[in-house]
């Protein structure tokens, strides 16, 4: 009977080991940033210049000034060329920079800029920017850079945007499991929906 006991202990040990591995394998919000590849864009757009802090020479423009649809649509949207020109036609000082010249080339030719998509979720996933912005920016009153940064990382320090977060299902779910305060001054908390149907389309 000793042998059976040994076998039993072995099996229990295996299962416990697997379980504890699982506990460790679960992604946490604090996992080190998983840097995606550097992507070549038609124009090397300097996010840090536009959105960066003043001390780093940035202009601290709100993300949603350009990605204006984020608060009212599923997608954040890439600004139309018109939007870039709107400011840049009156900023003479940088007019000769090669990137700006390129921009004006597109504008003059009335051609759209073929940006590469950096944060590209699988086709069967629905991510709603509006909901997240409404929840954390408007309702909970968090700073916009933090809210956008939950998923997009520290874009204000980047030139061309680069993916920093895993964007995997477990990563999404780990935040949806967490209790967040429902508004700025509330002790009441709530978590995101856990229906599969909410995010899978």
């Amino acid at each position, binding site marked *: 009977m000793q042998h059976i006991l040994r076998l039993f202990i072995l099996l229990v040990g295996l*299962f416990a080991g697997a*379980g*504890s591995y*699982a*506990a460790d*394998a*679960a992604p946490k919000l604090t996992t080190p940033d998983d840097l995606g590849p550097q992507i070549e864009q038609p124009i090397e757009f300097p996010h840090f210049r536009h959105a960066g802090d003043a001390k780093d020479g940035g202009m601290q423009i709100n993300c949603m000034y350009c990605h204006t649809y984020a608060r*009212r649509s599923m997608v954040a949207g890439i600004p139309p060329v018109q939007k870039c020109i709107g400011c840049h036609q009156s900023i003479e000082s940088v007019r000769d920079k090669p990137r700006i010249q390129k921009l004006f080339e597109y504008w003059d030719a009335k051609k759209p800029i073929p940006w590469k998509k950096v944060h590209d979720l*699988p*086709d*069967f996933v*629905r991510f*709603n920017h*509006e*909901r997240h912005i*409404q929840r954390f920016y408007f309702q909970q009153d968090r700073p916009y850079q933090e809210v956008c940064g939950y998923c997009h990382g520290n874009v204000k320090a980047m030139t061309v945007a680069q993916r920093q977060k895993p964007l995997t299902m*477990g990563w999404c779910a780990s935040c949806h499991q967490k209790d967040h305060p429902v508004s700025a001054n509330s002790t009441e908390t709530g978590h995101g*929906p*856990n*229906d*599969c*149907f*909410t995010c*899978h*389309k």
Partner: protein
Amino acid sequence: MSVSNLLENWSKFRHTHPVDDKGHPDWEAYPSDIKWAMSIDLDACTGCNACSVACYAENNLPVVGKEKYSHGQAMHWMRIERYWDESAGVGEFDADKGARFLPMMCQQCEAAPCETVCPVGATNHTEDGLNSQIYNRCIGSRYCSANCPYKVRYFNWYNYPEQEKVWPEPLNQQLNPDLTVRTKGVMEKCTFCKQRTYTARNNAKTEGRPVQDSDVQTACQEACPVGAITFGNLFNPESQVAKQWKSQQVELTKEVQDKDEKEGNRLRGYRILEELRPYPSVMYLERVRESAV
């Protein structure tokens, strides 16, 4: 994530049912304030097929063609059934009072037979009372369809978008970007136009108000030329669908409706195969035929 989560996680699938483990309905336990439901007035329904075509247009359903249709592989989430009166006996058809039409789609059962049997949990109950079908989770065991009493689940027997090329350029530009185009090997079915209910909920939430009838229409309801289909939140007493269910004395959580019917005042509401206790979310209203002529 740990072993304890194993038990916790899967049990969540069931807790959205208003029907507890002993089979007793329990509304109080319902996890949200929305329960989508439908009612279809068979007296108004003319069987014209507009709802079915609208469903094709809205939900990216593939047109399978004659050969596959002949193999019973059609993908119509909404099918129109045509019955005859059988006054002289079963199978003896009588056309004197016209035909009977019945639009049949997923009944979004509250205690759905399909949900419990899926080995991977690809179909489960949502908080707003739908049977969800998660295409990417589906491994194609087809057990759900095997256990569906209405047979309203449709399986992708082929790779329609890519190999069968059912949307030759430029027909593919018509595809609705709000939902996926399913590939081979996954089950699919009516979702009560989930993309629409989702948008309605989203907009209502942004505006900080509950969902109203005017926020959402399913594609079939929107098209129906005679307005036979009513859809809405059963929990909202102001919604048309809730009023109809109430006036017909049909309750979601009962498998046998004890109606207060007087002589000459039959209530028309009924649910199909209710006695199997799936608690379907679609109420049909009986067709009426004049007897004076």
